């Protein structure tokens, strides 16, 4: 019965993190996305040091200056200036910080609330609580997301903070449904019954036993949610309901430069590109993460 030590037993199996990285790094797009995200995080963290000028300082002698290396009045505007003479590059760099704050806050709020509601709905199936939670989420899902966000902002009043709350509310049903689905799958497994037999109470079952096993889809959804939060914030900013001027938020930068779309391409194109690159990077990384975390897609 005793196993013979065959040597070679020292080759320890890869750690979970190592295994995740191995699967993730097979996907080149995902790695590229991760690199871009890392660069963006760096930019966001050190925006004050990287940005050549203050994002709100107006150089009145250089309004709508095209991108060039030539100095204007002693200043170089690498990506040009906007209609009131602010440096587009500095505004974009500071906008990165805002975008990440928006992403983190709205995904954080939505994830926290969604996981809690989803766990409750999954554990108390068939009860009034589940019915109330899930039908409310269904109603929220039935509304177009931007319309819902606009409605929420209309109630709370425009502003960056309120836009983040609105985005968190819009994303909430996705997290709730995802958590509930994962909880239901896990609850059917014997280890949950084993844990109950070992004397675990409901709270322990919810947070210690079941939740860690639902983490994979939630991590993926949170990553993808990050990009949709940035996109929604830009949309709200564009509609004038998000960040208010002079905040250098990418969406509101787009909105304020709309009338110059024909005459000064850089004021519209560059914030748009920034949004595009960020969202694309998060989507690529999110997809890669999903492939790495989903055992069904593993080779």
């Amino acid at each position, binding site marked *: 019965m005793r196993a013979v030590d065959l040597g070679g037993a020292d080759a320890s199996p890869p750690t979970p993190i190592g295994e995740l990285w191995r699967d993730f790094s097979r996907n080149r797009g995902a790695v590229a996305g991760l690199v871009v995200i890392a660069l963006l995080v760096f930019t966001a963290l050190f925006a004050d040091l990287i940005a050549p000028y203050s994002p709100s300082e107006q150089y009145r002698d250089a309004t709508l200056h095209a991108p060039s290396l030539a100095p204007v009045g002693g200043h170089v505007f690498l990506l040009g200036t906007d209609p009131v003479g602010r440096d587009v590059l500095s505004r974009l760099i500071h906008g990165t910080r805002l975008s990440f704050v928006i992403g983190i806050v709205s995904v954080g709020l939505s994830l926290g609330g969604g996981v809690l509601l989803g766990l409750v709905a999954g554990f108390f199936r068939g009860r009034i609580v589940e019915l109330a939670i899930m039908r409310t989420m269904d109603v929220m899902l039935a509304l177009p997301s931007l319309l819902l966000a606009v409605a929420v902002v209309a109630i709370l009043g425009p502003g960056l903070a309120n836009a983040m709350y609105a985005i968190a509310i819009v994303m909430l049903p996705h997290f709730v449904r995802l958590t509930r689905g994962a909880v239901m799958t896990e609850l059917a*497994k014997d280890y949950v*019954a*084993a844990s*109950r037999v*070992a*004397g675990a*109470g409901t709270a322990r079952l919810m947070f210690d036993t079941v939740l860690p096993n639902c*983490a994979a889809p939630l991590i993926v959804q949170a990553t993808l949610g990050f990009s949709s939060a940035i996109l929604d914030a830009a949309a709200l900013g564009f509609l004038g309901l998000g960040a208010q001027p002079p905040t250098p938020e990418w969406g509101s930068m787009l909105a304020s430069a709309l009338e110059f779309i024909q005459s000064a391409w850089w004021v519209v194109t560059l914030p748009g590109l920034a949004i595009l690159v960020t969202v694309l990077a998060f989507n690529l990384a999110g997809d890669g993460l999903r492939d790495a975390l989903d055992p069904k897609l593993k080779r």
Partner: protein
Amino acid sequence: MSAALPALLEVERLSVEFGSGAATLRAVDDVSFHVNAGEVVGIVGESGSGKSVSALAVMGLVDEPGRVRAGRLAFAGRDLQTMPAREHRALLGGEMAMIFQDPTSSLNPSFTVAFQLMETIELHEGGTKRARRARALELLKAVEIPDPQRRLDAYPHQLSGGMSQRVMLAMAIACNPRLLIADEPTTALDVTIQAQMLALLKKLQEERGMALVLITHDLGVVSEIADRVLVMYAGQIVETQRVPALFESPRHPYTEALLAALPERNTGRRRLSSLPGLVPGAFDRPGGCLLAPRCPYVQPRCAERPALFDLGTACARCFFPLAVTTPAPHG
């Protein structure tokens, strides 16, 4: 039944129902049994006979929409039905433990073996982290896992089915339970591992003097380690008897049919003996004896519902219990 001391586990008139109205399914129908301290009781039956659900009901694991009703459900003289939830949870895992059929899903995939063992130990005994880890190692040794030191930090997906089942067993015996319910503990394992697992269960049961309820559809398993057997059919107990006697002379036609279907008893025949038909479901339950449509000895009186008759050495739910025979050559 005749024990002066209260039995370790007493179950009286236990019923479990699912669904409502016309679609009500009585998964467990008026089941009464007891388990004495240190005794090995086998519960045998086909799929859907209610054996697992009975065990889950005893452990308080039947959830809504299932409904559990019982005249009495007691462990060591303490009523499980009126006990506060906190006390009940302390009893579970402490004095009553259970292991399940599917070893691959019985361990939490997110945590290492050591973490899960130590969690159970912490919940019921406490102690320092170092002491708990030492205890976890000791438990892995007790369940005869090869290379226990290395298995401590393994994740469940790195273990084989047999090893997972041993870890489950280690968790179950972590707090020296007085009753262990094993729900088909060997069904998902290879035949060679099955034999090891049974030997291990028997050894642990004897060493620790714990009572063991072994749920299985394999009479061969029961014959090896059980003291007493309950045979279940369609949610009812149809026969109870002590072990050698049950195999020598079954008193209920269903038990006889189950025994006749064992491959060991069919040597030299071309086809395995089998009982025609299926266990009745929710919508085709006969009015009388539940076995009547499949029973080879069916009589007009079988349109009535038989009670579980006490036949002295055995109990059988049949109006015409089979006669005691001399030991069969294959028995």
